[in-house]
């Protein structure tokens, strides 16, 4: 969908916050950031929702909230919505708990506990094992390296991983990765569908026009159903 997250090429968003360019800033600047990240990973590990659902949930934020909120507010919005809609925790329960707990005092940079519970050990294992996304398929690939392709004019209001600025743009296949699990089917139907995935190369003039201010090439990883022959 072309939601508030679909930012590539948008004008008027402004310069990078100079605060962010100061050296030595920790990647998690507030204690709630790491905790939000961790509970999200846990909910996924527990099977409450998957990563594609979590990404899609963020895309449903109000535009002004998305653009102006602190980054982990996005994760909070999505996780809260998923847990509510799937019947785990309601929005109202969170409202009530916020009132009960008041101002939190979170430990910044917690140390690893002396002994880990089985769940904590499992989570650390998950962090280092990861969850590969490649999938076997019998479907032959439609494209080969060097093929000229066109990105389709795809404007579905549901989840995909097609940046809007690539719509209707000609490109060249630079690499074929094999098949990966389709993010749309994962987000909307919680099923695994393998789709061939390609690295596609675009030129700055094809992207931004003959008067494009700069000359460069751009690469994006696109699923086969985003493409058609040129």
């Amino acid at each position, binding site marked *: 969908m072309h939601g508030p997250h679909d930012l590539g090429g948008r004008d008027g968003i402004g310069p990078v916050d100079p605060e962010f360019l100061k050296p030595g800033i920790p990647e998690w600047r507030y204690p709630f950031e*790491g905790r939000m990240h961790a509970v999200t990973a*846990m909910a996924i590990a527990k099977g409450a929702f998957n990563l594609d659902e979590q990404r899609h949930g963020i895309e449903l934020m109000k535009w002004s909230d998305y653009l102006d909120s602190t980054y982990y507010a996005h994760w909070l919005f999505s996780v809260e919505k998923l847990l509510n809609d799937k019947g785990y925790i309601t929005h109202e329960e969170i409202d009530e708990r916020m009132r009960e707990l008041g101002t939190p005092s979170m430990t910044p940079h917690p*140390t690893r506990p002396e002994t880990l519970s089985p769940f904590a050990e499992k989570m650390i294992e998950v962090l*280092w094992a990861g*969850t590969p996304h490649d999938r076997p398929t019998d479907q032959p690939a439609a494209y080969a390296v060097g093929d000229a392709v066109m990105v389709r004019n795809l404007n579905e209001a549901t989840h995909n991983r097609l940046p809007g600025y690539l719509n209707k743009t000609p490109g060249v296949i630079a690499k074929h990765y094999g098949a*990966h699990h389709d993010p749309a089917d994962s987000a909307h139907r919680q099923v695994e569908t393998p789709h061939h995935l390609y690295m596609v190369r675009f030129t700055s003039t094809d992207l931004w026009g003959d008067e494009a201010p700069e000359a460069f090439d*751009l690469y994006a990883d696109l699923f086969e159903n985003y493409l058609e022959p040129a």
Partner: protein
Amino acid sequence: MNWLSLTDVEARVNALESLMVEKGLAEHEAVDAVVASFENDMGPVNGAKVVARAWTEPEYREWLLSDATAAIADMGFTGLQTEHMVAVENTAERHNVVVCTLCSCYPWTLLGIPPAWFKYPQYRARVVKEPRSVLAEFGVSLPDDVKIDVWDSSAEIRYLVIPQRPEGTEGLTEDELVPLISRDSMVGTALVTAEAAS
């Protein structure tokens, strides 16, 4: 709930964690353990070790360029968001820069948690349109004849930029090279110099 209020967001994350623990979706100490793991065991020094080895071992560099997933896994850096890797090499003719325009995709176990500038809208919107200008704002001024390649991580493939090895480091060992290699140089928004990275 004011989504633009930092204190509201913090209080709501706190409430959410509390409820998730009650409902069996999380454990407080496990949250501490996961946060500690990210902060202490994952970070750009992992990527710097990969780069330093590529600089000192030509065979490893070739392997990294042809099968980054395997070459990086060989050094023990596997895991969430580092499952599918591609390494792209900076040269005298070509400079690479990575972005995730749609969210904040980044190889966590290799480079750690992404910095704020990578995750917020401003960089994501502009670097796919004006990469040279954006790089100049990061202090990277490239000669006009250096070609720029921008990598938009739109699927689960994650990118590692292999920065150019600076002149004056020929005598350094792999271990001595590691501290020179900054996080930003592995995303493409900095060059490596012969002085230690901050």
